[in-house]
């Protein structure tokens, strides 16, 4: 059994990257490995939007990520610097910035790039999916 982490740079429904990453994630966890964390960076932060509303006949990426957390305990880490710039805010961050609404909710967590460095150093594999 290996510990995996993923780095996702691709925005949902713009490029295949997020789909490829979710598909690979499912393969990791159903093959006896552990998917410790997924770090969303660059445009990948949009995967964390609680307002994502794809048509019913398309895969719901945010729900797919949440399912990994619920079923396998995978941490869903969103880069706070990349997220804030692009309008991805938790309730706490929205308060801090005086904004009326937010769109990042647990199990997604806004966190620093240090968590990406940590994921790279402390897992057996880090696999990147970029647009």
């Amino acid at each position, binding site marked *: 059994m290996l510990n995996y982490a993923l*780095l996702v740079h691709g925005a949902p429904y713009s490029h295949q990257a997020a789909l490829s990453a979710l598909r690979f994630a499912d393969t990791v966890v159903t093959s006896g490995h552990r998917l410790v964390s997924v770090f969303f*960076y*660059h445009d990948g932060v949009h995967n964390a939007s609680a307002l994502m509303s794809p048509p019913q006949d398309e895969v719901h990426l945010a729900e797919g990520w949440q399912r990994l957390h619920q079923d396998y305990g995978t941490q869903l880490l969103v880069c706070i*610097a*990349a997220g804030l710039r692009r309008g991805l805010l938790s309730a706490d961050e929205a308060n801090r910035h005086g904004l009326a609404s937010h769109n990042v909710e647990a199990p997604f967590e806004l966190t*620093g*790039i*240090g968590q*990406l*460095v*940590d994921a*790279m*150093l402390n897992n057996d594999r*880090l696999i*990147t999916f970029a647009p």
Partner: protein
Amino acid sequence: MTSVHVSDIEPQDVLIVLRHPPHGSHWLREGIDVALVAAAFGQRVGLLFQGDGVYALLEGQQSGALGQKGTHPQLAMLEMYDIDSLWVSAAALSERGLSVDELMLPVKPLSAEAVAELIQAQPHTLIF
């Protein structure tokens, strides 16, 4: 231009490969951010400028329209973070008509063979 020999390459903890030019996208900026944070976490960090990433090293860069920040202020901070293992693809430079003397940082040019060797030697590599 004399390229660095393979045997001169000292492995780092983390190698960040920068392949994108400044201003046109956020790749370069977000890649350098990872390098700075990794260094702040006590990792030995090396940078390889490859492809259009070599344009990050041009002298005379400025902020863009509407105050768009460039990456040159970030690169100026590398020394403060003890990031001094800086390499550049010699082929990428010559394809673009550039030489190491006109770049803003003291980077070591690597032959194609040395680029492959560099990437093989690093325990962790991220490409931006």
